[in-house]
């Protein structure tokens, strides 16, 4: 296996939002992991678990409360203006909502050209040519470039968004739930497009989603987040076949089976109780209130993310005991 090169290193990253003088929303709490070059890391978790905040903080769109994000050795959050400009050429974001992410008063050409402009000055003809190339790259007709976003369907709009992101020619793209607002049939198209582009352009993705089967399809490694913390992270095959964290097990058991002869293989793990609040998180394991196997230790002591198998990280006290 070839030597893996770390492109993005996330070290102990925290992002808290101050709600009032006493309350803090811990959206991302001590998250650390690496993203290797030409790899897709999927992040899953339920709504409000901090996936989006994680993605935006990694890109420096939100200032970090503590911790570091190293992109190719450069600290994103302490970068100067010039470094930041360079960083933005190399790292980009794909947004979730194809309806809100395109300015309704700009033509498709101008939208894509906005990404192009970050690469330097182009003449009008060069711009036009590049826009056409990008449109065909994402599977849209170049003739569409003088239209406005409202003339397109959701999937087409998302492709326009992809073209804008690609215009920058980034190496690393944070895909912030780029498929969740789309129809299932379109989702597959877009996910395949992401895969193709990765091969063609050698991209690295941080792919945020809440659809487990889609993430499995596209990701090399998958991280599961719960209330701002990384619960488990492993190669996607390992994670789906051999989940260790009770939360991951519960999530996976909730995926409906597509085979009518084998409805819901295995038993369904039902989660009890409410999702805790990230505003005042419990002292122990964040998942303890819903975990069917929670012990007293879980409620008192925060489990740390530790390696339970080669390349398989899990933050659970129970796992620790089994491992030793």
């Amino acid at each position, binding site marked *: 296996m070839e030597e893996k090169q770390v492109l993005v290193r996330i070290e102990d990253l925290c992002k808290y939002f101050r709600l009032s003088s006493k309350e803090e929303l811990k959206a991302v709490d001590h998250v650390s992991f690496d993203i290797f070059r030409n790899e897709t890391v999927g992040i899953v978790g339920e709504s409000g678990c901090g996936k989006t905040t994680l993605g935006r903080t990694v890109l420096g*769109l939100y200032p970090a409360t503590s911790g570091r994000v190293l992109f190719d050795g450069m600290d994103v959050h302490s970068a100067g203006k010039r470094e930041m400009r360079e960083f*933005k050429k190399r790292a980009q974001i794909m947004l979730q909502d194809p309806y*809100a992410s395109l*300015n309704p008063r700009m033509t498709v*050409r101008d939208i894509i050209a*906005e990404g192009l402009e*970050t690469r330097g000055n182009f003449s009008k003809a060069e711009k036009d040519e590049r826009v056409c190339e990008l449109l065909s790259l994402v599977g849209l*007709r170049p003739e569409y470039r*003088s239209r406005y976003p409202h003339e397109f369907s959701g999937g087409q709009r998302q492709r326009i968004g992809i073209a804008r992101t690609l215009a920058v020619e980034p190496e690393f793209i944070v895909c912030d739930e780029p498929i969740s607002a789309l129809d299932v049939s379109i989702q597959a198209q877009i996910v395949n497009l992401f895969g193709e582009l990765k091969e063609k352009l050698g991209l690295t993705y941080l792919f945020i989603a809440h659809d487990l089967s889609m993430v499995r399809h596209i990701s090399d490694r998958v991280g599961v987040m719960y209330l701002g913390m990384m619960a488990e992270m492993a190669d996607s095959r390992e994670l789906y076949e051999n989940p260790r964290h009770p939360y991951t097990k519960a999530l996976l058991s909730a995926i409906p089976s597509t085979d009518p002869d084998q409805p819901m293989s295995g038993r369904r793990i039902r989660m009890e109780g409410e999702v805790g609040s990230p505003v005042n998180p419990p002292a122990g394991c964040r998942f303890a209130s819903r975990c069917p196997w929670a012990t007293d230790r879980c409620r008192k002591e925060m489990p740390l993310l530790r390696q339970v198998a080669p390349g398989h990280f899990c933050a659970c006290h129970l796992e620790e005991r089994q491992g030793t």
Partner: protein
Amino acid sequence: MEIKTIEELACIPVENDDFAAASDQDEGDVILRPSLNYWQDAWRRLRKNPVAILAIVMLAALAVMCVVGPGMTGYDYDAVSLSEKNALPSSDHWFGTDKMGRDLFTRVWIGGRISMILGIAGAAIDMLIGVVYGGVAAYFGGKTDAIMMRIVEILASIPYLLLVVLVSLIVGKGVGSLLIAMCLTGWCHMARLVRGQVLQLKDQEYLLAAKALGTPWYKVIFRHLIPNTLGVVIVAVTFDVPSFIFGEAFLSYIGLGVQAPMTSWGSLASNAQQTMAFYPYQLFFPAFFIALTMLSFQLLGDGLRDALDPKLRQ
């Protein structure tokens, strides 16, 4: 040939081309549009709107008449002629004369200058200050926004008439002081409107995308914020122009505005109103032109708002 039965239909020879697969790139399907940017496209849409074009033509005609009108009859706007008091419209005096025998045609266009300048300048100043102020408040948000909006509220709560009296005491009576006094608080509602609009835009994801792309702030403002607030601003401006013209009329009526023998549409109308029962034409002409100007501005504003919204393009 006419086909009547199935048998006849079966007899028609089938050419193989009829069943050939459609080509992937169906030429007829490709609709090419001229390559235009947003502003060119807006202008193209505006030109297609006959009502808006009519409004532009009317406004242009009014403007031209304000420039050349006073010179057309050979009468001075302040030349008093006691022998021709309250004359009916005739070939000598096209719009008749007022109670001092002054030619109304000349006076209407002299007054038109004041009213049009006041309306347009006032609305432009309101728009400029309001857009910048409201935009800045919303863009920076938080404490800046809170402080700036409290200032607006305090300004807006000062009685308008009090302000006009104070300014005319300091600056002196006339068009200038009128403009200052009316603009001093007039921009507040525009600032509020723009702030509301920008606050709404601020959370749009395309601004986040622009931030991630590293688009410089001035491009964010000119490309994203201004085009998306323009619709609201234009509607507000088209209401602002008439309000300035009416405001001037009212202030002239109570003696704070334009001083005689200089005149404006507002003061012409208010003078004529006293003798309306006897000389209705004295009221008709200034009132007609006020109404025409207002209508034109509103129609133009309507057309502009539609032209600036690509969703309404046919």
